[in-house]
């Protein structure tokens, strides 16, 4: 195997290397890649879309169709993990661990045994049990709201600073995953359960595709935000800016939900009862 691997990578490396003598130098401002289409974006982004962050303008307006499919890619990854891993089980077929809060005694309920489900005195703990760590729990509880706030800031300020839907969505998802890691997976389920996450991801992408469809129904091409001008009571350029914001919100929602859904499925291997 090793020799086959070495031969293959040498061939591939040679093939990639073959073209490099004709490459432009790194950082050359006159390289062909920076001459044809990019100057148009840089010079006209603000006057076309009123968005100073050129990357966001190109991402969500000029090449907005790519971004919609990118959101569909992340959506399909979430659905694929659900499809592959999810085990819908009625009865529990594994042993479960419960801890009595007052005395600290741990109960082990065997397969099919009666479970003290709703009792306030018993707390379900994971099989790979770690000791109760107050520092982590309290610190996470303090940090999570600020992370979420920052995520919303990143989404909303995508127009003026580096950011946008994907970045903010991932940060938001990371906040929820932090909550799930520091506490139990089941507590995270109580905050955002599986159906809500799936619904949010579908609604997020639907927001993006729906905006595009709305533009189509209003007479323009798909994703031509300038046609939203009458609906939003502004001129065509500001309509593009608002259209970009709407789709960024849709993207952020979808990415957040998919990150959380991926975490739920991967960490509990589809069973959704015990996690990391």
């Amino acid at each position: 195997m090793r020799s086959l691997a070495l031969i293959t990578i040498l061939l591939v490396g040679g093939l990639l290397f073959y073209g490099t003598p004709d490459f432009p130098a790194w950082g050359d401002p006159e390289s062909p890649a920076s001459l044809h289409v990019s100057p148009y974006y840089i010079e006209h982004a603000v006057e076309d879309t009123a968005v100073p962050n050129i990357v966001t303008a190109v991402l969500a307006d000029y090449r907005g169709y790519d971004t919609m499919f990118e959101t569909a890619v992340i959506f399909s990854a979430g659905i694929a993990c659900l499809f592959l891993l999810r085990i819908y089980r009625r009865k529990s077929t594994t042993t479960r661990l419960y801890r009595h809060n007052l005395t600290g005694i741990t109960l082990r309920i065997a397969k099919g045994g009666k479970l003290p489900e709703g009792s306030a005195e018993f707390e379900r703990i994971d099989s790979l049990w770690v000791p109760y760590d107050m520092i982590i729990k309290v610190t996470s509880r303090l940090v999570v709201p600020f992370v979420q706030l920052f995520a919303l800031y990143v989404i909303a300020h995508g127009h003026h600073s580096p950011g946008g839907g994907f970045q903010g969505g991932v940060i938001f998802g990371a906040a929820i995953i932090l909550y799930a890691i520091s506490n139990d997976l089941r507590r995270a389920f109580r905050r955002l359960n599986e159906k809500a996450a799936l619904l949010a991801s579908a609604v997020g992408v639907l927001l993006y595709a729906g905006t595009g469809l709305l533009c189509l129904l209003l007479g323009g091409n798909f994703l031509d935000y300038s046609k939203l001008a009458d609906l939003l009571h502004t001129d065509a350029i500001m309509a593009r800016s608002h259209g970009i914001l709407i789709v960024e919100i849709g993207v952020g929602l979808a990415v957040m939900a998919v990150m959380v859904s991926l975490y739920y499925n991967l960490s509990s291997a589809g069973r959704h009862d015990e996690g990391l």
Partner: protein
Amino acid sequence: MSAHFPGLVIIIPLVAAFLILIGALLDRRLAFPLTALALLGSLLTAIGLLVKVLQTGVVEYHLAGWAPPVGIAYRVDHLNALVLVAVATVAFVNLMGTRELVKGLFDDRLGPFYTLYILLIAGLQGIVVTGDAFNLYVLLEIAALTGYALVGMSEGRAPLSSLNYIFIGTVGASLYLLGVGYLYLVTGTLNMADLAVRLPALYPSKVVVSAFVICLVGLCIKMGFFPMHAWLPNAYSHAPDPVSSLVAPLVTKVMIYVMIRMMLFVFTPAFAFDQMAISEPMVWLAIVAIVAGSFMALSTRRLKRMLTYIIVAEVGYMVGGFWLGNRLGISGAILHIVNDAIMTLCVFLSAAAIISKVGSDAIDDMQGLFKKMPVTMGVFVVAGLSIIGVPPTCGFFSKWYLISGAVAAGQYGFMAALLLSSLINLVLFFRIFEIAYFEPFHDHHGDHGHFVSAVQEAPFEMLVTLVVTAVLLFALGIYAGDIVSQIIDHAIPVGIT
């Protein structure tokens, strides 16, 4: 509204995917009707687009209102429209035919299954109509991801085969992306028409040559061209039956379409055929692919695995036919894309019906099936005859064009390989016909140890679908001449003789 057809043909499945998931969260039984409606809408739009292209010529659609090369443009000409109709037809027919199978296999996850199904179709249709090289990569990845998930969901060796498929497929897609990056590096644009305008001035450059080779290698990996076909037999034969009959006809054919599009329209024929001078090696590789695929099909006694090796050989037909470089060969390759899609659908669908009723994948377990499942076996016979290349089924006509092209180009080795492959397909299929017809049917144990006694005909829906595909095979054969003269002739650039 008809001006928006190029966009609608993808937006309908895409929006439907999200609605299906939301609907399935409410009630599981909503998934199938919504999918059927969306795919029907997509099929009608595709047919409308083909009619429009036949009437008015090339259709362009500027997404987000920006003209290329600033924005993304869709460009539908005769080649696109034909392949698009083929993809939409296969998707819809397969959906209707595998309904019962899917309910049996994936009942608790119908919503996610149909969502992934329709996202796969949206991705494939997008690949066919797009005119932007990077947009093609994104759509390629949607189709690939959903394909990986659908293929991996079965017991047995499916997850491992799918994981190997992911590794090889990702390398292929990354190589394609790298090739597009090289092209962007020296031209500054991503739009295919714009690239075709800018590249000829740069042709001796090593970057363009290596971009060509890298793109070609990446596409050959994704289409399962020998010797990069190793993922194909495992992934497609271990996949669940309703998924095999969807991905086997479509994914490799769409990749071959991408290769044709890149070679004919981005790297113009003058570069691809004349300057690069790899036509000969490609035809030789195709000969090896055909021969190897046919012999490997002979070596196995499992039905689905045999069919996947036949796919490897068919990919060899199309790639070899294209690289012959003359009008007959390229017409044969394009016609074979459409024909092979329907033929593979037909044969995999009947194989799915057979396996679901008999309970095992082995050819030796198919004894006496002609009496028990006459309609299914009848359709299987028609599909087998088409793969062998018997008139008036469609397989004969595309083989005819390919052989004529081989003779015109002087590639007698390719012609010999085609004839040899037809002979081997004859042996393969008549072996099955003999077991199914002449051997007496007796109650025997299926592969999973359960006692299979009352093997009856496939469910009615599936029978109707099978008969429809068989009729399509004949119809494509009868109208093959029309298809070539009206559509394919206009699809090939004028300079090729």
